[in-house]
C-alpha cells in the first residue's frame, strides 16, 4: 500500500523586507502510512509547525514553498488551486491548533462548532453530523455526551475543550489529522487524559496523524514514527521505539538528556548548611489571601487558606500544583504584590508589611521576584545594561564604572557574553531573555529568589540548561529559592523541600525525599503517576492505576469545608472528607500531610 502522505524534499523559505530568502525548511522527506501517527519533534524555530502546515498546502504569511512536493494520496498539495485546497482542508486533512481556548468561539454552542466544518463542506447533513459528534464525544470519554453539544465552551474544562477540538477535526472523517502541540499548555494530570483519548480515538477511527511537539516523553506514548528536527533539517527518523531506546543522533540524545527522570526519592539536592542561620530566611504563617474586595479579613475570592511555609536559609523550596491552585498567588503575597488578608510574612524572623509600598528598600532588596515570561518582564525599550544597571544603582548606589563592572559580573554569572549589555531584549532568544530576567533579580543581591514558572515557557533543552544554571547559582551565592512549577520532575530535580498545593491548601510538605516516597497524600501520588515517562507503553500502564481512574481531569473546586480533593480522591470517605477539614498529620521530620487517613492507612 502506498503512503497516505509523502513529503518529498520539502523546502520552505522566509522572505524578508529586502526580498531576500532565508531557508526555514531545508529538504525534508518523510512518509505517513495509513493509520499511522508520525511525530515531528524539535525546539521552537526548528520548522516543525511549518512542515506540518504544508500538508494542508498552507504556509504562514511571509513564508513560501521553494521546492519539493507534498503528496496526499499521490496528489501534490503545494501546486493545488485555491478551490481544490478548500476541498482538501477540513475534509481530507484536519488541523488541531495548540490552544483550544483561543480556537473556540465563546458565543456559539460546542455542538455547532464541532459540526460546522463538516456541514459546511457538505459531507453530512446537520443531523448526521450531530450523531457523529455524539459518537465522538463518547469515544473521547467526554462527560454527558448527549447534552454536551448544547453547552458553551466556557462551561467545560480546558482538557475537555482540547478533546472537543479533536472531535471537531475528526467529525468529517479526515484522512489525515495534524495536531500542533495539543497537550503542551495542559497540566500533567489533564495531559495524560487527553493523550489517552487521542490515542484511542485515532486507533478507533483508523486515522493517520502528524503530531507536532517538543516533548519527547509525550511522543513516546502516541507516535509510531518519530522525526527529529533541528533548524529545518531532519536529524533522525525512525520508529518510536528505536528513537527512544537507541537514539543514533547526538541531537536526539541531547533532547533525551533534557527530559528529566520521573520524580522519585533521592533526586533533590542536599543543600549544605553552610549558610544556615537560626530564623528561616522567609516564612509565611496562617496565610489567607485572595482577590476582590476584602471584608472582615476575608477577600471576595479566596485563593489561599491556612498556608504555612518556611524557607530555610540556602535551601530551595519547590511549590507544585495544577494551574489555579494558588502557587503564583503565594509568590505574589511573599513579594508584597498582593497583600495578604490574614496571616503574616516573616523575613529573617521579622514580620513584613503585607503591601510592598510599605516595605523598606532593604526588605524589598532581600526578596526578589523572577517573572514567568521573560518576554514581557523585560522592558522592550531598555537596553540590557540599563535593565541590569538599575537595580544595582537603586539598591546599592553604584554608579559609572562600578555599575558597569557589576553588570559585567552579572552577565558572567548567568553565562552570557559581555557584549549583550548593548542589546535590546528583542535581539535575544527565549533562553537568553530568561537569563537576563534572572540576572536582574540577582543584581539586587537578594536573600530569597521567588521563581515563578521560570522554565515553563522554554524548550526542554534550554530549560534544562537554565535549571543547571540555577543550581550553580545556588551553590555560589547561598540564595534561598522558592521555585514554583507545575512540573513535578523539574521541582524534584531542583528543590530540597517540596510544598504540594491543591485548591489553595497545602496538602503535603516536607523534604523532597519524604514527599516523593510513601506515604503519599493521594493527590501527590496522582501527580507523581501522571508525569510521562520516556518509554513506549507507559500511558497504558498508568491509566490502569487507581489514581488515574478516579481523579484525573476533574474540575478543581474551592471549598470552605471538608477536603478540596474530595471529589477526585480514590480513597475519599463520604461523610468525613466532604464535611470536616482534614487534620495535619506530622510524620517523620518536617514531613506533614493534610488528610483524614491515618499514618497506618497511608501505608496500604
Amino acid at each position, binding site marked *: 500500500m502506498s503512503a497516505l502522505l509523502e513529503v518529498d524534499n520539502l523546502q520552505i523559505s522566509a522572505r524578508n523586507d529586502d526580498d531576500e530568502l532565508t531557508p526555514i525548511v531545508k529538504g525534508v522527506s518523510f512518509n505517513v502510512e495509513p493509520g499511522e501517527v508520525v511525530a515531528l519533534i524539535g525546539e521552537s524555530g526548528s520548522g516543525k509547525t511549518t512542515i506540518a502546515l504544508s500538508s494542508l498546502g498552507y504556509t504562514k504569511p511571509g513564508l513560501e514553498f521553494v521546492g519539493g512536493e507534498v503528496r496526499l494520496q499521490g496528489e501534490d498539495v503545494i501546486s493545488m488551486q485555491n478551490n481544490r485546497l478548500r476541498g482538501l482542508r477540513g475534509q481530507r486533512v484536519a488541523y488541531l491548533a495548540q490552544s483550544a481556548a483561543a480556537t473556540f468561539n465563546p458565543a456559539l454552542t460546542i455542538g455547532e462548532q464541532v459540526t460546522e466544518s463538516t456541514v459546511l463542506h457538505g459531507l453530512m447533513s446537520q443531523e448526521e453530523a450531530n450523531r457523529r459528534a455524539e459518537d465522538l464525544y463518547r469515544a473521547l470519554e467526554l462527560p454527558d455526551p448527549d447534552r454536551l453539544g448544547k453547552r458553551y465552551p466556557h462551561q467545560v474544562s480546558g482538557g475537555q475543550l482540547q478533546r472537543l477540538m479533536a472531535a471537531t477535526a475528526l467529525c468529517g472523517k479526515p484522512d489525515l489529522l495534524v495536531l500542533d502541540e495539543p497537550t503542551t499548555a495542559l497540566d500533567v494530570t489533564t495531559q495524560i487524559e487527553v493523550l489517552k483519548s487521542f490515542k484511542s480515538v485515532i486507533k478507533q477511527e483508523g486515522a493517520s496523524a502528524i503530531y507536532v511537539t517538543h516533548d519527547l516523553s509525550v511522543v513516546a506514548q502516541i507516535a509510531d514514527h518519530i522525526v527529529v528536527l533541528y533548524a529545518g533539517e531532519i536529524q533522525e527518523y525512525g520508529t518510536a521505539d528505536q528513537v527512544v531506546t537507541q537514539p543514533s543522533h547526538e541531537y536526539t540524545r541531547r533532547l533525551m538528556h533534557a527530559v528529566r527522570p520521573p520524580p522519585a526519592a533521592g533526586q533533590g539536592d542536599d543543600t549544605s548548611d553552610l549558610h544556615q542561620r537560626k530564623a528561616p530566611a522567609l516564612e509565611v504563617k496562617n496565610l489567607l489571601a485572595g482577590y476582590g474586595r476584602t471584608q472582615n479579613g476575608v477577600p471576595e475570592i479566596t485563593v489561599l487558606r491556612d498556608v504555612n511555609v518556611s524557607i530555610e536559609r540556602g535551601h530551595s523550596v519547590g511549590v507544585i500544583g495544577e494551574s489555579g491552585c494558588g502557587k503564583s498567588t503565594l509568590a505574589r503575597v511573599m*513579594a508584597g504584590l498582593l497583600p495578604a488578608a490574614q496571616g503574616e510574612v516573616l523575613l529573617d524572623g521579622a514580620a513584613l508589611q503585607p503591601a510592598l509600598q510599605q516595605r523598606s528598600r532593604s526588605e524589598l532588596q532581600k526578596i526578589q521576584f523572577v517573572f514567568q515570561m521573560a518576554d514581557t518582564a523585560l522592558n522592550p525599550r531598555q537596553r540590557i545594561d540599563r535593565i541590569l544597571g538599575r537595580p544595582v544603582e537603586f539598591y546599592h548606589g553604584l554608579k559609572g564604572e562600578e555599575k558597569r563592572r557589576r553588570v559585567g559580573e552579572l552577565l558572567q554569572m548567568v553565562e552570557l557574553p559581555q557584549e549583550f549589555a548593548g542589546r535590546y531584549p528583542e535581539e535575544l532568544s527565549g533562553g537568553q531573555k530568561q537569563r537576563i530576567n534572572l540576572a536582574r533579580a540577582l543584581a539586587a543581591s537578594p536573600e530569597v529568589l521567588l521563581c515563578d514558572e521560570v522554565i515553563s515557557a522554554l524548550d526542554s533543552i534550554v530549560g534544562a540548561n537554565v535549571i543547571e544554571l540555577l543550581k550553580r547559582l545556588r551553590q555560589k551565592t547561598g540564595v534561598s529559592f522558592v521555585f514554583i512549577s507545575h512540573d513535578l520532575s523539574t521541582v524534584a530535580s531542583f528543590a530540597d523541600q517540596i510544598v504540594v498545593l491543591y485548591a489553595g491548601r497545602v496538602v503535603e510538605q516536607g523534604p523532597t525525599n519524604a514527599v516523593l516516597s510513601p506515604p503519599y497524600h493521594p493527590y501527590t501520588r496522582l501527580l507523581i503517576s501522571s508525569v510521562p515517562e520516556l518509554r513506549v507503553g507507559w500511558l497504558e500502564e498508568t491509566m490502569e492505576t487507581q489514581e488515574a481512574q478516579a481523579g484525573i481531569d476533574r474540575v478543581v473546586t474551592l471549598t470552605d469545608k471538608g477536603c478540596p480533593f474530595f471529589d477526585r480522591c480514590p480513597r475519599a470517605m463520604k461523610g468525613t472528607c466532604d464535611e470536616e477539614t482534614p487534620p495535619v498529620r506530622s510524620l517523620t521530620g518536617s514531613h506533614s500531610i493534610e488528610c483524614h487517613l491515618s499514618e497506618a492507612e497511608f501505608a496500604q
Partner: protein
Amino acid sequence: MSEQTNSTDESFSFDELPDAPPKRKIKLSWPGKIGIAIILFWSVIVVIGPSIAPYHEADILDEELFILPGSDEMYPETEFQPPSKIVYLGSDYIGRDLLSRILYGARTTIGISVLATLLAYLIGVTAGIAASVGSRYLDMGLSRVNDALLSIPSIMFALVLIAALNSPGIFWLILITGFIYAASVFRIARSLGQEVMVSDFVEAAKVRGEGLWWIITREILPNIAMPLATDFGLRFVWVILFISSLSFLGLGVQPPMSDWGSMVKENLPGLVLGSYAPLMPAFAIASLTISVNMIVDDLSAATGGKLAKRMIS
C-alpha cells in the same frame, strides 16, 4: 550569539535558535517619501513664505497691473483673475494675489495647528497617564469628565465658546482647539498607559520599589511614545481641518490675515465664475493632510498595525 551549553561532544554543538523576528525597521514607501517631501516643503514655506511672497497678504492689487499691453481698457477687472504673469495663481474676490496669501497663510494655518495639537497632547497625555496610574477614583473622575466633553460636537462647542468670548483672537483659538482635542488624546493615552501599567516589567519595577515618577518616565512613556507619535500626525490633520472649518464659518482667523480655511470660504463665489481661487487653498490643505496620512501609514505598518484599532476620532 551562542547559548552556553554543557555539550557532551565538543565538536557537535547546537545553538539555541533565536526566536525573535528581526527588528522591524521603519521603511518608507514611495507615498511616504513623497509625503515627507511635501511636509518639508511646507515647513520651509512657514519660515520663508512671507519673504518670498510677491505681494503682502493684505495688498489689494492696483488695476494698472492688470492692463494688458496694447489694450485700451482703463479699468480692467481685478477680481477672480486667472493665473498670469502678474498673479501666478490668480487673484481672489477683492483682487489680492492668491499665491502671496497662500504663502502667508501657511504660517498661520500650520502654526496654529501645531500649537493647538501640542497643547492637546500636553493636557491629554498628562491626564491620560494620571488616570492610568492613579487610583480608581481619579481614573473614574477624569474619564467621566472626558466622556462628557467628547459627547459634545466639537465644532458646536468651539462656536459657542468663541461666540461667548466675542471672537477673541488667535491665542484663544489655539487654547480652545487644544482643549477640545485633549479629550480624544486622553482616551488614547489612558488606554495605552493602562496596557503598559499591567505588564510584567512595570510589576517588576514596582516590586523593586520604584517610585511613580520613575515608572511613568522610564517604563511607561518610552513604550507608548511610538503609538502616540503616530496619533499625533493624525490628530494634527484633524486640527488643521478643524481650524479651517472654524475660519470657513468666519469664527477662526480674522481678516485681513490670511489662512487657508477662510480663503476657501471667501473665494467660494468664484466657483460660479469659473475661477480657481477657492481650489488653490483647498489643494494646499489637502496636500498637507494627505502627506501626513501617508507618513502615518508607514509608521503604523512599522508598529505592526496595532495602532489602527485604537484610533478614535
